[in-house]
């Protein structure tokens, strides 16, 4: 246990140092393009296309631009965690392979899960910067905090990070097996972007889309976050917490088992570096 904690701390430290030592403004800015584009599009739709006449419905808050644009801002701010899970945790082994260090990494006696957890910790810390930045951008588009429930806010962050970690593990296993570079991570980003209620309440989506939403942890994370900041409260927050915990555990177990299995398979067939 103590050893695993040390692995987590040292991996997180190394990753944070690497991120900031080789900081790239172009890569950093790129992470905000999707949220910025969505905020701009939502603002234009509300203010220019529908000229504030047709008020959005079904949000559980008072109508008006601040309600709608705050709804969109929270969804987009939360989306940065998907980037952390899909592109950082999900491509760890791809980069280890690309830089020629994958065999050395797998030769160490450390716990693989501790190593991946360290990477998730670093990614989550970096994501908090993005998260804050998106909220700040949202202020320019009319984001307003209706009220603040700190425990619920923290629970949404921690539990979503945990659930997304499991998905990151699965992505990593797929990437490692198929030598994929970005397709798995990109597909995951699209899946979350479309079905987690970023731009539209899940209740307004077609029934088949709602079924997909229910299987994605980010849906509950966003609902919890909105409840903590906007007081939308259409669904019991405890339901969201329970759903996040259950889904997080399921994804984590699948991710951990898949990763172990794939490592075993790659070792057996000598496919770590070349195949």
């Amino acid at each position, binding site marked *: 246990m103590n050893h695993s904690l040390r692995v987590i701390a040292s991996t997180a430290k190394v990753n944070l140092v690497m991120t900031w030592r080789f900081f790239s403004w172009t*890569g950093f800015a*790129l992470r905000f*393009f999707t949220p910025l584009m*969505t905020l701009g599009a939502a603002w234009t*739709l509300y203010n*220019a296309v529908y000229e504030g006449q047709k008020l959005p*419905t079904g949000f559980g808050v008072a109508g008006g631009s601040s309600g709608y644009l705050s709804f969109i801002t929270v969804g987009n701010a939360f989306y940065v965690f998907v980037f952390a899970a899909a592109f950082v945790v999900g491509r760890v082994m791809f980069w280890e392979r690309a830089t020629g260090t994958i065999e050395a990494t797998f030769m160490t006696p450390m716990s693989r899960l501790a190593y991946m957890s360290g990477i998730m910790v670093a990614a989550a810390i970096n994501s908090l910067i993005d998260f804050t930045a998106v909220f700040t951008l949202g202020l320019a588009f009319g984001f307003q905090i209706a009220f603040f429930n700190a425990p619920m806010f923290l629970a949404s962050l921690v539990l979503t990070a945990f659930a997304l970690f499991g998905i990151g593990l699965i992505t990593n296993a797929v990437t490692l097996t198929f030598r994929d570079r970005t397709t798995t991570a*990109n597909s995951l980003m699209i899946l979350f972007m*479309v079905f987690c209620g970023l*731009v539209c309440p899940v209740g307004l989506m077609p029934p088949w889309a709602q079924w997909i939403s229910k299987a994605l942890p980010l849906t509950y994370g966003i609902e919890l976050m909105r409840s903590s900041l906007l007081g939308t409260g259409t669904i019991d927050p405890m339901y969201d917490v329970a759903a996040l915990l259950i889904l997080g555990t399921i994804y984590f177990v699948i991710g951990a088992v898949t990763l172990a299995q794939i490592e075993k398979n790659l070792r057996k067939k000598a496919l770590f570096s070349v195949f």
Partner: protein
Amino acid sequence: MFARVAFAEAVKSLKVYFFSSRTLFWALALPLGNGLYLYFLYLPFAATTVDLQFGAAMPTKIDLVGFTIIGQLLYSFFTMMLLAGASFDAERWQGTLEVLLLSPANRLALLLGGALANAVNYMWMLIALVLSWVAFIHVGIFVTDLLALSVSLVLSYAAMIALGMCLETLEIYSRRGSIFTAWLQEPVTFLSGQIFPLQKMPTFLLPLSYLLPLTFGLMAVRLTLLGGASIYAVTMPLAALASMTIIFLVLAGLFVNYAERKAKANATLTQF
């Protein structure tokens, strides 16, 4: 010789990428996902149609699903053209970029071959998607002038292929070419009128919108495919698309020479 190089490059790219996860994502998952995302963006407004207007003409009511789907299909073609440049990135990763550029093959032919292969890769997906949407989602197609629709499609694709060739040179010029092209995606989505009608774009951004072939392509294809416009109604966007095709082709020729010369002089083709 030019045609043979372009053909060979196109065949090579088709063989490598036709049944790849990359093509499946960019030509199928991305248009479907983004199309749904934009449709969901409109859901809170309980809208079923969008008013589309170009210049001083009267606004035309367009089916919302058709509006977002056509927007996404053309935008995906644009991203496929951006992706054509990634073939140079792949050559660099495989260590074959220097060998490729040592050959006497015409560089423009190489660019054209890559762009054409991506166009073909996308075309069969596009046809399948359009047919399935018309059959299952009942998108309101309203065509009165087939010639106008055909010319709109051909010129839109030609202008975007030419722009794609320009952007491909970024991949030769810099290892960060992929990031530069990725940078374009969201601004182009916003500025081209893909998400909302162009007449609602903030005025100060319109000059930027008019630099994009996608803007005129979307206008012409939406009006002719969903709004029943004749060729006379879309003369202006078609003329803009034809001009852009020529300009971007000339620029692609100049850019590729510059990028290659610079990369060779700085020895940055493979490592830097």
